[in-house]
């Protein structure tokens, strides 16, 4: 008789036994009393919403989807997913504010901005412009915008790298993400350099869209799903057709592709999920498990690096790989900062109504960074980088940038 043999519940929230541990680790509830907290917003609220959808509380929008509640939960409750899924199911279905559109359409805005990068960068740095954006779009005027690159990564790749990359005996595919494409093509170039040094050529996907993380958090689910479908099709072609693994340089894009697609957008990816991974993990495997070797410069100055674990990195549990890679670099001394949210959470911290919350969340991290004595901070997430650079005196770089800059 198969009666509740293993009490495996489809309703994952029922595993919650009200131990309250998640409430200790929620960065938002600690600073914003308008947010009901992970326990109430997640499993407790879900039970009531199942009774009747009108138990939905619009304050769920304050959840910044960091998933730290899930990492802390001893009962394996997918608290963050429950909250985000409730926003999708019960929250406002149309979100037409110009602000949210601009912030979440990183692809569109990026491709409009990069050709005009010098103008856009100067403009968004100007105080009057920021005041206007604050007033008109509710994007906080204190927020410093990331600079757009003069030309996208993909344009550069097609013009200058494609042919040469194809010549390598081994190949991987690269999901570069919006940040590398529009803001920091250098990181993409760094990755190519490292992979090439190990004998790998790097290919682009047939077609790449923004992973959609910003669309999801801004309630633009349909568009997110459309973009996700494009990405999954490209990834499947790469994995199944071209026999390539897909690597990435952004922890949040990776997490979105692997976990948010099936959990929030109901887009199954089981067949290819294991083939999508962060480049740092891919490199770790090549070097540590398969014996590949990188040659480093001997003459580089000593560097003290403090590693910050982005929330979605913490959720994936992969910070180990980035840290181990940094530790392999001669002359680099690594300290690991306490794993805590920096407060930016993608587009969340750009919004006027969240600015104070965002900075309050990050405050303990900023203090630790200032006190760390590090020369620079390393992290795998671009939005954490913006937040750290804006809120502390330290520069912040991707681990692969540090690694590439010290290759022989």
């Amino acid at each position, binding site marked *: 008789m198969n009666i509740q043999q293993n009490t495996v519940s489809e309703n994952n929230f029922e595993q919650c036994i009200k131990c309250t541990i998640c409430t*200790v680790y929620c960065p938002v509830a600690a600073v914003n009393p308008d947010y009901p907290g992970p326990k109430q917003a997640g499993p407790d609220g879900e039970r009531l919403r199942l009774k009747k959808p009108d138990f939905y509380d619009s304050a769920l929008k304050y959840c910044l989807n960091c998933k730290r509640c899930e990492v802390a939960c001893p009962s394996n409750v997918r608290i963050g997913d429950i909250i985000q899924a409730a926003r999708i199911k019960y929250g406002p279905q149309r979100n037409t504010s110009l602000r949210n559109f601009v912030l979440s359409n990183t692809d569109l805005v990026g491709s409009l901005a990069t050709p005009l990068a010098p103008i856009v960068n100067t403009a968004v740095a100007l105080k009057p412009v920021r005041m206007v954006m604050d007033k008109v779009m509710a994007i906080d005027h204190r927020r410093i915008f990331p600079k757009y690159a003069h030309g996208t990564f993909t344009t550069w790749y097609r013009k200058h790298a494609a042919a040469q990359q194809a010549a390598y005996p081994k190949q991987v595919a690269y999901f570069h993400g919006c940040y590398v494409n529009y803001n920091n093509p250098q990181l993409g170039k760094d990755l190519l350099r490292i992979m090439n040094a190990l004998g790998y050529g790097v290919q682009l996907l047939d077609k790449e869209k923004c992973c959609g993380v910003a669309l999801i958090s801004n309630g633009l689910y349909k568009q997110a799903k459309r973009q996700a479908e494009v990405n999954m099709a490209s990834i499947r072609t790469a994995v199944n057709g071209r026999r390539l693994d897909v690597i990435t340089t952004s922890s949040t894009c990776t997490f979105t592709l692997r976990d948010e697609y099936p959990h929030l957008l109901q887009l199954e990816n089981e067949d290819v999920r294991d083939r999508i991974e962060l480049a740092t993990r891919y490199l770790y495997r090549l070097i540590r498990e398969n014996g590949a070797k990188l040659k480093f410069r001997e003459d580089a100055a000593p560097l003290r690096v403090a590693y910050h674990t982005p929330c979605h990195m913490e959720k994936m549990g992969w910070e180990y790989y980035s840290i181990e890679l940094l530790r392999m670099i001669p002359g680099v001394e690594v300290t690991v900062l306490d794993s805590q949210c920096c407060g930016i959470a993608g587009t969340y911290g750009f919004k006027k109504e969240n600015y104070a919350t965002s900075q309050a969340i990050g405050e303990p991290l900023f203090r630790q960074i200032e006190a760390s004595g590090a020369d620079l901070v390393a992290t795998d997430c671009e939005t954490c980088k913006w937040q750290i650079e804006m809120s502390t005196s330290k520069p912040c770089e991707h681990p692969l940038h540090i690694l590439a800059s010290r290759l022989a």
Partner: protein
Amino acid sequence: MKFDTVIIGGGLAGLSCGIRLAEAGRRCAIVSQGQSAIHFSSGSFDLLGQLPDGTPVEDPAEGIAALEKCAPEHPYARIGAQACERYAEAARKLLCEAGIPVSGSPRRNHYRITPLGMAKPTWLTIDGYLTTPSPEVLPFRSVCIVNVEGFLDFYPEFIAEAFRRHGVSCRFASVNSPDLENIRRNPSEMRSANIARVFDHEQNLDRLAARIREAARECEAVILPAIIGINRSDAFEVLKAKVDLPLYLLPTLPPSIPGIKAQQALQHRFRALGGEYFLGDSVLSAEVEKNRVKSIRTVNHGDIPFEAEAFVLASGSFFSRGLIATPDRIVEPVFGADTDFVPNRTEWYTEHFFDRHNYEAFGIRTDRSLKLLKEGSVMENLYGIGAGLSGFHPVQEGCGAGVSLISALFVADRILNSLKS
């Protein structure tokens, strides 16, 4: 990933075992499925408060010696009384070195005061928490019990009711501040951790101190819920300096600030010694060859397995799902190891909540060196420690923390010895 030892479970047992091994220079990883039960700590660590038949224990070392006869399957009995006493002392040192300042002796229990004002025998208590050498005597004749307005997880009236039975006069005071009111805007989050964050700020500590000085005039001492010092470890000392009266903390209902602090301190210590702590990951499968575990695979790390010479199962009991109860059996889910239980569910418990229930003593079956068994065969490099072990009633006997710490250090020694030989 290659380590010397991989420990499954990052609670009190797993962390102390990891710390001990890391101190000895071993490369360890801990895989923990979420945060641990340390988060519900009372601020004290129990060694042995009662024998299985209910006899109160004053001298735990002596009590453990008695267990060898009356409860030979008890983990203490299997480790041996003398070794237990040695490990108890080592455990105290380990906690102190990790930054958890505890006092107490394995030769004599003292009493901790609970959030309901009751006295419970215990072994080690974190400095600052109220203890007494005897359950009948409190260290003051009059006390002011302070609470935060609207904090529902601490009960001054209950404490006073118990204290008054011992002739102590009690007075109440409550504190409030704009920052506290700000938390209370949220109907559910006026919890210890959020309150403690308020008191990490100097001006709020000042305000609290002023309120205490005013309310506690004519009192010999002050009692405060454990809501001080979550991110700032000197907060309690600073407060004490501002209040010119003996100040004692009492634990609250979860989440427990001393628990959170202890968890963080142990984790820091483990990491500082070079240990790798993988939080929020679950073990999926193990590769076993000829009664030896070669590697385990986890949800997060998929195709990159954790390989090690020795493995330690410190995954706890039912709460942390180290043990899973189906309607008719008790399963150890990671290795499918042998477990001790009675098959008939009606014998798992009685209908009275406060009874000693059989299920509490169910757990993983181990040999004398705490190696796990599978289908009757000893697993050569797989050890069990902590709450998941069978043969003891952690709450009734008041020995949960002690079993975790002592079994952890015992197994760490076994592993170190086996590597030597």
